[in-house]
């Protein structure tokens, strides 16, 4: 069995066994804890006032803007990982190439900054 498969077998087992163990206390609670149904108890909490309307309403569009900028930079960061690993073996050329790549992205960040996409108004 190749080593890489064994590696991910461990990760998979961790995820499944971890989920079972994290859910275990919930089972204990289901067995032990009291249950009493009162209509007031399952009401949404809103600082003691009877809640009005749903919470699934409109929210500030700014959150979405930041998520968009994040996606761009996250993809960039993924490209940086392999570059960093082999950097010392490739020498000056690798540095110049990454400099060009980063410069384009820095221009993008400066543009977003200038346009006010990074402001929270």
């Amino acid at each position, binding site marked *: *069995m190749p080593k*890489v498969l*064994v*590696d991910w*077998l*461990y*990760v998979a*087992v*961790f*995820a499944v*066994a*971890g*989920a079972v*163990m*994290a859910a275990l*206390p*919930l089972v*204990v*609670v*289901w067995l*032990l*804890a009291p*249950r*009493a149904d009162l209509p007031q*108890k*399952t*009401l*949404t*909490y809103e*600082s003691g006032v009877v*809640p009005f309307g*749903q*919470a*699934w309403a409109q*929210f*500030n569009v700014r*959150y979405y803007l*930041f*998520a968009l*900028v*994040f996606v761009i*930079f*996250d993809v960039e*960061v993924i490209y*940086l*990982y392999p570059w*960093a*690993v*082999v*950097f*010392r073996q490739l*020498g000056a050329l690798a*540095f110049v190439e*990454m*400099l060009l790549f*980063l410069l384009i992205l*820095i221009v993008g960040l400066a543009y977003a*900054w200038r346009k006010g996409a*990074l402001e*929270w108004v």
Partner: protein
Amino acid sequence: MAWVIEALKAVGLTVAVFTFLAVVGAMLGVYLERKISGWIQARLGPKHVGPQGLLQTVADTVKLLQKEHITPRHADVLIFNAAPVVVAVAALLDWVVIPFGTLGDRVLVVRDLNIGVLYFAAMASLTVLGILSGGWASNNKYALLGALRSASQMVSYEIPLALGIIWVALAAGTLSTVGIVEAQVRQGGWFLVRLPDPVGWWGAPLGLLAALTFLAAATAEVNRVPFDLPEAESELIAGYFAEYTGMRFALFQLGEYGEMFAMAALASVLFFGGWAEPRLQPWMWVGVALAALAVAVVIVATGRARNLVVRPLLILSLLGAALAAVMAWGVGAGRTPVLPSVAWFAIKLFALVFFLMWMRWTYPRLRLDQLLALSWKVLIPVGLANLLVTGLVLTVAGR
């Protein structure tokens, strides 16, 4: 049938790591947090359950196990119930690549993945899924706002966090956590203060800057003060877990503590040499011991020993003096390594965790716009510039 044996080994390791997380992360971590918080606020903290209140967390767990689960009427039941488990499992998955120390020639790590730190960053960001789904499924305005704040904060700080990790990968030439520690052992210094030869100790400012970026981003990733806006209790009533009760609430807390300990462990691996023992001359250890002792003497001599606020500092300086004295004696007698590697890992881990707890009671909470500005306008440009300068330095010096 080799894979069955491997799977059984993996199950055993899962149980071990989960127990470690529950005992060290949740039990001891919560106890320390409450005790240190108490002292810094001139209170005593937990004191009555067990010696010095040590069993307080156990008593709390027993209490939580007997609490009723309340699912709000308007909540999305399936997502609402699954979210705490997702957060706890995400925190657990981080620990796959954290090396705890060495035993003979073997490194005590669940699995030394070749993409270790990238895997860590990916798993750490899974937490946001649990938080966002939990906050959304609650159908509560506070919870939704907290979850959205948390999501925008975590995605904003993921990039400086990754830039800090990439800086280390650049210096070490590998993504494996074990490889990173070994690279620091090879060059004879932490990445915090030293770059590979021929740059050597001249790399200290770059390393300090990278560590600072990483630690600030890591604090924000685990939602701790001064970046605790998602759960700001005074404005959002605990934010995304406002509707959670009993054990499900505790699972969120367990995930958060597991994540905090994992971040501290990763920081110690990346910048503080992981399990490796620092190599100093005996006279340097004596100097460290005397400096720590001087702090303790000043505290006692000025009559502040009974002041609860400085008590953590007094305890820490005495512990540090004792550690440095043992090291000075051990190195002087030529019995290196003096302490087992697991002990060094634990010392570095708890020192960083204490640092996070100390910060909690030192800085006020940021505003959301300040928080996002810090990430996008300070940490990301600084992180990128640091990466470029380090690349340039390594390229020029490597000629």
